[in-house]
């Protein structure tokens, strides 16, 4: 530690290096899955305009490529990138080298082997038939459990050997995610559920995977990078803890609101609606805290790619959470349930929030892992505007189309065909938005290839550990 109690930059470099291999492995896998998932998502979307396209070839039929898109994005792109962020962030926050790094690397490889097997089986027509749980529970899921468990053990082991007493709020979120997710994944895949139980357990898993896995680690990144870039602590640390603990206690019951109108016990759905409304507490706590931390410094978004992606991601978190709370109400759900509104809503969560936060995190972390600067400001700009524009059009289109579709479905004077016609133009908007998003992903992947191939310092002192020139002297009498 330096005399002021801050960590010596050289030691910081050591900590970064300790998780370099598994984190890089996870990020490379994440980007590959992002490209695969984008391709199949876009193809699936265009099938709404051209239903017969590739339909004769079973592996490319809608019923197979749609779950391929979902599973590659959740367990490939998002999960891999989140593992990379966690493996890099935890050593930094607990001032301890990553323990059992080779073990974590092996875990990442095993996870990916399981995912490849699961995706190939979905193409072959074999999946578990439950949303978010399509990967085969015999031939694929065990790899994910073992691989994820190995990464989790490395992270928990690092936490146990930490040299700081207190756990920063980001560490709470990451530690929680690595304890909650195995419970959720194992119970979600338990084969003994039937009928109503199966539907309940399915949505218990799917909604909590979004919350206790994707949201947890993404919020951990937000709480780290906003102070880091702005050079000032989070507005209220107390509020951040309130946000975490209320999230931990209210979130788990939310999933049943997906089954409003289904043959479920009324008390179960009502409890879920109440729990969903209670999410106002953590969401408001997080939203106020993030906003107040950035206020007065929004100009930073013109300079920092990391902050630009992360702040927009944080805004999307507030938006998707409030949208989710309203959608959980019976009167709103009556219109939006079984419509494309839900797809738009889920993309605000998984893309505008989680994916944007992960993009922002990778922009900060990758130069440190590779010891090189990003080669092109223009490519970062293209990546941002393509993904921002794409997801904006995507969400607006599906939200408007979904409401028209829902209203048409509720109108007994209209045929089912009328509901399809009502949403059709908005599905075209969605397909072209998908193309724009995919173009953004290609730019991002190409930029990663460029940074990897660019010349940098491979050994010795990292660039950001070298002494920096002093450019503003302190006035007399100040420090």
């Amino acid at each position, binding site marked *: 530690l330096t005399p002021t109690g801050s*960590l010596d930059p050289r030691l910081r470099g050591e900590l970064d290096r300790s998780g370099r291999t598994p984190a890089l492995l996870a990020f490379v896998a994440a980007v590959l899955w992002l490209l695969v998932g984008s391709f199949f998502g876009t193809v699936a979307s265009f099938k709404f305009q051209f239903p017969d396209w590739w339909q004769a070839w079973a592996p490319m039929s809608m019923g197979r490529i749609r779950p391929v898109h979902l599973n590659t994005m959740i367990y490939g792109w998002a999960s891999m990138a989140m593992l990379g962020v966690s493996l890099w962030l935890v050593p930094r926050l607990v001032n301890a080298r990553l323990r059992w790094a080779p073990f974590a690397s092996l875990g990442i490889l095993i996870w990916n082997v399981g995912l490849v097997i699961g995706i190939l089986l979905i193409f072959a027509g074999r999946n578990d038939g439950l949303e978010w749980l399509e990967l085969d529970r015999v031939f694929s899921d065990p790899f994910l459990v073992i691989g994820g468990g190995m990464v989790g053990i490395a992270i928990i082991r690092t936490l146990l050997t930490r040299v700081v007493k207190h*756990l920063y709020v980001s560490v709470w979120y990451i530690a929680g995610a690595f304890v909650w997710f195995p*419970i959720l994944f194992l119970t979600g895949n338990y084969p003994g559920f039937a009928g109503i*139980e199966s539907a309940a*357990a399915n949505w218990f898993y799917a909604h909590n995977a979004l919350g206790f896995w994707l949201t947890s680690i993404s919020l951990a990144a937000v709480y780290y990078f906003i102070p880091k870039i702005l050079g000032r602590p989070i507005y209220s640390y107390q509020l951040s803890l309130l946000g975490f603990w209320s999230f931990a206690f209210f979130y788990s019951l939310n999933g049943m609101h997906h089954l409003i109108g289904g043959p479920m016990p009324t008390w179960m759905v009502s409890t879920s609606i109440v729990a969903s409304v209670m999410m106002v507490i953590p969401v408001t706590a997080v939203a106020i805290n993030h906003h107040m931390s950035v206020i007065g410094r929004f100009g930073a978004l013109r300079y920092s790619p*990391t902050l630009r992606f992360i702040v927009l991601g944080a805004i999307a978190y507030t938006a998707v959470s409030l949208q989710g709370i309203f959608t959980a109400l019976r009167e709103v759900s009556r219109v939006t349930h079984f419509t494309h509104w839900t797809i738009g809503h889920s993309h605000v969560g998984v893309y505008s929030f989680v994916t944007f936060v992960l993009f922002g995190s990778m922009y900060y972390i990758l130069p440190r892992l590779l010891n090189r600067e990003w080669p092109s400001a223009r490519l970062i700009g293209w990546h941002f505007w393509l993904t921002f524009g794409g997801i904006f059009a995507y969400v607006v289109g599906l939200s408007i189309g979904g409401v028209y579709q829902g209203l048409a479905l509720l109108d007994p004077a209209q045929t089912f065909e009328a509901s399809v016609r009502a949403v059709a133009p908005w599905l075209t908007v969605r397909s072209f938005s998908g193309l724009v998003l995919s173009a953004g992903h290609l730019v991002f992947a190409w930029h990663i290839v460029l940074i990897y191939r660019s010349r940098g310092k491979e050994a010795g002192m990292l660039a950001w550990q070298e002494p920096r020139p002093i450019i503003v002297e302190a006035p007399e009498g100040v420090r």
Partner: protein
Amino acid sequence: MLAASGVLILLSILVGIVGFGFLVWGLLNGQFDELEAQAMVPLDEEDLRLLRPWETPSQCEQRVRDHGTLLQARDSDWGGRL
């Protein structure tokens, strides 16, 4: 009805107990003491001394008063360049 919902009740309790366990552990281990200091954990001394081009002159002056001389930032400090 209750029997059919049993699995969900048990799962929710299980997840809740994990959170509750964390909370008790945190309370017993003083994790909620010295919150002001905890908020500074992500920030190194150098982070506080970087010249941030978006800061107003008064914000910049405040940073000099609080943390001393300011240092030149690199692109990677902001996650790249725009």
